[in-house]
């Protein structure tokens, strides 16, 4: 276990291992997303009350899920980097941040596009929406802080602290916003209650969900590899690569 941990923390080993792992996530992701899209757009029957608009769920929900998953993963990586002074963990966190931010933005975008036909407006002050917006700012704050330092080590560790502080706050923010939402229930939003999702609606969602997750991991790995090279530019093993 410990040796494995140590190996993982050696850049060359990680670079090679990630390279080997990559296809095992990339191709399944491609397949699953393709199947899920087909299932969601073609096979799944229209919702009895939302009609075909509900098909947006197949991109919206996975994005929303990944936006949360991504932040937690980032925070965990950052924490490991701080505690065990593991450079690669910071690399991972930095690889995840923009990815997670992009999925957060996607959840917001698809969500508000969905909201237009459902609620007649692009934006309502719904709890999940608001907290998603705040989550986006947590991501952006992390990225901005990380870039603000001219010394990379400092930037990594500082933004790692921020990520940990943030992850403690995410549930609190979500709860408080929920609570706030119950007070200011906008009249426009009537049916955010989920329509009963039947099995033939559900399986494409699950497939999509899995596919998005695989995709997320694959891209994160690739970004991490690139950044590893970037950082180890001077070192011997990188020299041998080229």
């Amino acid at each position: 276990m410990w040796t494995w941990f140590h190996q993982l923390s050696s850049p060359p080993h990680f670079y090679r291992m990630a390279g080997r792992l990559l296809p095992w996530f990339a191709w399944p992701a491609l397949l699953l997303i393709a199947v899920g899209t087909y299932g969601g757009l073609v096979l799944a029957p229209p919702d009895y009350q939302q009609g075909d608009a509900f098909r947006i769920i197949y991109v919206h929900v996975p994005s929303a899920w990944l936006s949360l998953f991504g932040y937690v993963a980032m925070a965990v990586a950052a924490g490991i980097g701080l505690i065990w002074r593991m450079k690669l963990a910071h690399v991972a966190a930095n690889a995840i941040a923009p990815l997670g931010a992009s999925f957060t933005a996607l959840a917001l975008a698809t969500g508000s596009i969905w909201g237009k036909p459902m609620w007649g407006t692009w934006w309502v002050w719904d709890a999940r929406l608001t907290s998603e917006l705040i989550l986006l700012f947590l991501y952006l704050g992390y990225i901005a802080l990380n870039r603000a330092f001219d010394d990379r080590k400092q930037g990594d560790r500082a933004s790692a602290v921020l990520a940990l502080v943030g992850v403690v706050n995410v549930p609190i923010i979500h709860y408080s916003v929920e609570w706030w939402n119950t007070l200011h229930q906008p009249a426009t939003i009537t049916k955010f209650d989920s329509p009963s999702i039947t099995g033939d609606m559900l399986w494409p969602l699950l497939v999509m969900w899995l596919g998005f997750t695989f995709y997320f991991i694959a891209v994160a790995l690739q970004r991490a590899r690139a950044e590893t090279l970037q950082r180890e530019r001077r070192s011997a093993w990188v020299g041998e690569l080229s």
Partner: protein
Amino acid sequence: MNMAVASADVQLGRLAAALLRRDLLLAWRRIGDALNPLMFFVMVALVFPLAVTPEPDFMRQLAPGILWVAALLASLIGLNALFAPDFQDGTLEQQALSPLPLGFIALVRVLGHWLTTGLPLVALTPVIAVPLGFPAESLPVLLLLLLIGTLVFSLLGAIGAALTVSLRASGLLLPVLILPLAVPVLIFGARGAQMAMNGDWPSGPFYMLGFLLLIAASLGPLAMAGALRISLD
């Protein structure tokens, strides 16, 4: 060293006293800096009634929220002056070298900062709240809420200040880091003020604010200590 451990609590007390004395002295000799947040607070509270000219009852509905926003934004203003001077003149190094935990030191410094900015702000609130149409009899509740809230704001803000202390231009970055974290305090505080205004006792908000204060006061020092160490390295 055993002795050191044995008398640790005594030392903590003496240290806290010394730090507070120092910060209050400095604040007193540069009272101007402490005034900025207050001025901002007053101005924010003034804009809405004076400029927007809504009918009083409308204003009264907004009063609690506006008070809380004003308090939040005001407590952001003096923040980049919390650790930066100590960082520049080498005092922060000495604090990091103390055998006593840096987190504790940071905590005491935040307390000092709050005493010179947050507390006056709360003290000033009645002058603003009443014109906004806030019933005088429920002022004490409001002040109590703000007392807790500004403390949390200071703690959160201090984390941001510690993270950006070694950056030259932390200007607009600091609020971006802090505001998302401050949202829960804002929500519960404003709601509490609302309830107080309607004359009922905001037990829920009080619990939540207390809970948030607890978290901020227990985890904040760790974050601050880590951030400061990183900035010094």
